[in-house]
């Protein structure tokens, strides 16, 4: 395992860059535990100070240190993405594996429902959800809503892998030796789809963090929880760009772009590792 990671790091530029970006972002998130200020308090430092040695990312118009505010915001954003991704994995694994293993009518019915959920525009639906909940809207609620809508794309990917496992000899072998369908799925098929589950987790995190940023920036989430999105929301509320407090906007945007790129590059390089054909192609294009 370690050797694989080392080789990937050495020969796969996307993996190396992605790892570095994610480590930096992760470092920020961990730093939040050492914040000298209570995260939600305002006017703990002088407002609107440009970046300096004392305040590396400056301070905002609410009298908060942008650097420490950002560490907490990125931690919350990452945690949000991770919890949505983990919760939606349950649904996508269940539907993908069952559809792939059962085949036939079950597969067709599940995939028809699946494709329906893929194309339904989620943004208006989440806005409607916020509209109904308003003050009761919270971070876990949004995570659950997004997880229950964000599974279909990955379920289709998992199903395509599971479909190929169905006709493999070891599956027939397990059936003959009297394993139940549940056992076959969990003990035999699950390990094969795990790599793709991992790479879809990264993609799903990207998706959910992006959607959370979007909803927060318009103010359609609980704006009291600091995330990257609510940080930009408050900056916009204080018209930071017009007031010349550019550091309040530039640093969160830059950090969240690093997170998006890092997650994406990691998932791309994972996919490449899973599919040896594209690895051969890379070697070919280097010659």
């Amino acid at each position, binding site marked *: 395992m370690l050797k694989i990671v080392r080789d990937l790091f050495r020969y796969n530029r996307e993996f190396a860059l992605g790892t570095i970006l994610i480590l930096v972002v992760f470092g920020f998130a961990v730093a939040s535990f050492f914040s000298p200020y209570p995260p939600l308090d305002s006017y703990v430092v002088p407002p609107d100070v440009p970046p300096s040695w004392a305040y590396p990312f400056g301070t905002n118009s609410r009298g908060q240190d942008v650097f420490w505010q950002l560490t907490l915001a990125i931690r919350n954003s990452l945690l949000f993405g991770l919890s949505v991704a983990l919760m939606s994995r349950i649904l996508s694994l269940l539907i993908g594996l069952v559809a792939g293993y059962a085949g036939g009518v079950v597969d067709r019915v599940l995939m028809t429902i699946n494709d*329906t959920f893929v194309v339904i525009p989620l943004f208006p639906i989440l806005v409607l959800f916020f509209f109904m909940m308003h003050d009761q809207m919270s971070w876990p609620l949004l995570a659950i809503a997004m997880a229950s809508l964000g599974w279909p794309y990955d379920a289709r990917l998992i199903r395509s892998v599971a479909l190929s496992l169905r006709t493999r000899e070891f599956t027939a072998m397990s059936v003959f030796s009297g394993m139940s369908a549940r056992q076959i799925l969990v003990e035999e098929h699950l390990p094969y789809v795990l790599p793709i589950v991992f790479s879809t987790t990264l993609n799903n995190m990207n998706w959910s963090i992006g959607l959370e940023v979007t909803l927060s920036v318009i103010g359609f989430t609980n704006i009291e929880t600091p995330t990257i999105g609510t940080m930009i929301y408050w900056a916009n509320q204080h018209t930071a760009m017009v007031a010349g407090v550019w550091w309040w906007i530039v640093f969160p945007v830059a950090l969240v772009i690093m997170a*998006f790129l890092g997650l994406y590059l990691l998932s791309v390089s994972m996919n490449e590792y899973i599919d040896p054909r594209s690895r051969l192609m890379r070697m070919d294009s280097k010659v």
Partner: protein
Amino acid sequence: MRTYALYFVSRLAQFVLVVFIGINVAYLITHLTPIDPVEQAISSVTMFGQSSPEMVEVMRKALRELYGLEGSAPQQYVTFWKRLATGDFGPSLSAFPTPVSTLIWQALPWTVGLLVCSTLIAWMVGNFLGGLAGYYRRNILLKALGIVAMSLQPIPYYIVAFILLIVFGFLWPVLPISGGAEMNIDRQGFAFAASIIQHSILPALSLVLVGMGAWFIGMRSLVSNIVTEDYVTYAELGGVDRRRILFSYVMRNALSPQVTGLALSLGAIFNGAIITEVVFGYPGLGTLLVRAVNAGDYSLVLGITSVSIIAVAAAILVIDIIYPLLDPRVVQG
């Protein structure tokens, strides 16, 4: 012809299913959440000054009727679909007494125009360049383009639009950053059209930038898989013109999954379009939706959500119907 009819019916069924499930999700959200839109509207009205209890009761009854919340649960469900089928979402509360449908009809052309243009541009340019990049793999320029596409692709629409807004609004203000057209201008003729185009450059650009990256990367990997096929090698050995190989032999074959991809990602593209509208204050559905939420306009929010679902499903149906023209094999299924 019979196979096409069969194909058409199955696509139509998918359309109906998308609308049915989508609208039901919207219905569930409005009816399963503990918050009552009527009480919310009343509390926002009674917040300013005193109202007599009798008046509140009259208002409550009127609103319940208006929102279709009268009667038992099955009755409410039937009323809901009836309203949807007739396109009657009631009057808008924030722009009383203008019907919700009028507001949506005013906003819809803007969203459709922006969405269709930017999606077509992104899809065609992205696929064209991606095809080139997959075929001429050692070209430095195309490799650089690949890196740009890869770094743009994972960024959400909002962030890209926001960065464009900052760049062209504050750092280099050359383009209009808000609205759909100039305000005090004759609503017909060349100047108006030019103004519309000028105002749509930035929203369209942010949609194209994000969209193009995905098509570019997809097409590049499809093409670089196809060029290793025997028939391509054979054509190359046979001395067929390289350009003809690329466009007629390789790209035509790779196009078909990209059309399926377009149909599948249309929902996400639609999300991106309405978010971009919000950033640039473009007078389409997105801006209307945000305004409706902030004004607490229940019928308008529900109306926009329903219309969005139907619009996306209809667009996919259109793609599905013209798809066999590109690739006759899909009809045989």
